[in-house]
């Protein structure tokens, strides 16, 4: 609606304002963008949507654009260790299956670490995925120490010459200090076995999340040093605009998006497509 040469008027500006706000980019960003558009409109510098769309597009691309660390580059030597974190139900375990499939399809040897030893049937869930993808999984029993599982998984990845090790963790709220401390410990223990591991710490976000995503990103980053975001459930109607708000606070790129519930529903993050979906 906004992209065909429509004349700007109050009604269209209201439509635009609603579109920006309902993307979850946050009121500060939405209002700042609207202020610039409204000012230019009132000064008669812009007349149609053709004048305003390029400006909005480039502003949003600046805020969310990938840059060259917007994917996962595998290390040339030794396994690339990927730690996956995030709040409860965000989509971590399913996203791990997708990452595993993504690398397995490239002919890489992938191993999974069942680091969620807390939630009911979490290990079973990841085990089913490992079976479907055809990759090995390292696991201990229910309520085992997640740091111990992570350590064993790294040992196994080295011993079995895996290319990629992806470690699952239990969902946790960033407000649970003891669980964030546990995450720090898991990371430290991984680093004991391979000095610069984990090489990637992927924070999984539910695309329907609102402004709380910013606190999530800040606190998970503080505890574990997040290197990339995985925006899951983008196949719904939510735009996932919260990642724009996150980028203003924490400089972490979106690396992948989840577009469904199978292991194939993964795509590298496409900033143009993401911004176009917000503005359409």
């Amino acid at each position: 609606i906004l992209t065909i040469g429509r004349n700007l008027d109050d009604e269209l500006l209201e439509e635009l304002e609603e579109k920006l706000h309902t993307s979850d980019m946050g009121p500060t960003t939405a209002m700042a963008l609207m202020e610039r558009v409204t000012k230019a409109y009132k000064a008669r510098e812009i007349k149609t949507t053709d004048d305003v769309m390029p400006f909005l597009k480039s502003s949003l691309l600046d805020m969310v654009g990938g840059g060259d660390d917007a994917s996962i580059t595998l290390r040339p030597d030794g396994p690339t260790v990927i730690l996956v974190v995030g709040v409860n139900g965000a989509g971590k375990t399913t996203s791990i299956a997708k990452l595993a499939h993504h690398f397995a399809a490239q002919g890489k040897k992938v191993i999974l670490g069942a680091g969620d030893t807390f939630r009911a049937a979490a290990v079973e869930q990841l085990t089913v995925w490992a079976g479907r993808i055809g990759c090995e999984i390292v696991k201990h029993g229910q309520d085992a120490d997640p740091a111990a599982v992570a350590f064993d998984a790294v040992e196994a990845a080295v011993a079995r010459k895996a290319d990629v090790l992806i470690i699952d963790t239990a969902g946790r709220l960033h407000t649970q200090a003891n669980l964030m401390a546990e995450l720090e410990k898991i990371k430290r223990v991984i680093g004991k076995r391979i000095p610069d591991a984990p090489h990637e710490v992927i924070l999984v976000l539910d695309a329907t999340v609102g402004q709380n995503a910013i606190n999530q990103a800040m606190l998970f980053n503080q505890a574990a040093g997040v290197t990339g975001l995985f925006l899951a459930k983008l196949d719904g109607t939510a735009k996932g605009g919260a990642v724009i708000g996150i980028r203003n606070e924490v400089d972490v790129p979106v690396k992948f998006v989840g577009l469904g519930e199978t292991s194939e529903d993964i795509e590298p993050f496409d900033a143009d497509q993401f911004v176009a979906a917000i503005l359409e």
Partner: protein
Amino acid sequence: NISERLRSALGAFGKRGQLTEDNIRDGMREVRKALLEADVQFDVVKSFVKDVTEKAVGEQVIQSVEPGQMIVKIVQDELTELMGPADPRVEFADKGPTVIMMVGLQGSGKTTSSGKLARYFRSKGRQPLLVAADIQRPAAIDQLETLGKELDIPVYAERGGRPAKICQRAVAEATSRGCNVVILDTAGRLHIDEALMDELNDVKSKTSPHEIFLVCDAMTGQDAVVSAKEFNERLDVTGVVLTKMDGDARGGAALSIKKVTGKPIKFMGVGEKLDKLEEFHPDRIAGRILG
């Protein structure tokens, strides 16, 4: 927080015991921003601010109170009224088992909340039966069976078959199993997935639930209104369970969902463990949303 923001926006110029149109307009600008930051949906905020502005204009003025504080009180009262009243009642059947259907988006907390509700009903003297209606998600049945074992509450499961038929058989067997509350834990799904939404209607028509609870994540943003509206229009839900309220999400989705569906929020999840379920209190979340 909102009181401090209003004080800095109005306090310096606002005389005690007076609420001018200017105070109200400036105050509402701060309130609007606070509600949007709290994830209340854009249009819900618009109509809320409009309603409260009208109320504030007609408001009785209290002599000893700052205008900022007066606005907070008016807004908080209005939010509480919109969210309320507190209504955790569940419609129990006069005869035969009471059927409770749990629905919602992926990962919202349905399975965990099913376990929590089973425990809650047992504490009220009922005999619950948990039904594993999610045959899609890997180890979903294992997950519910683990919760059932932990609580010593029976779980009905069939590995294979269609969810609607599974639920129908579970309800038919409930009484012979000595159970009088049947909780159907369905698979998470998108409100835009036609086939899966039809499946829910199939479950509903085959089990005639007494309650249909929409389970929503408290940290949901602007999209809460879109999905809640669709689930409600399709199923005519009877209540909402708001999960993960133990986090620091402001929970504006609660206001949006209530406004758009008109259905009561009955329970809140306040933790991962099965005893972490509370009856919903509108006044408490009103304060939290406002910040």
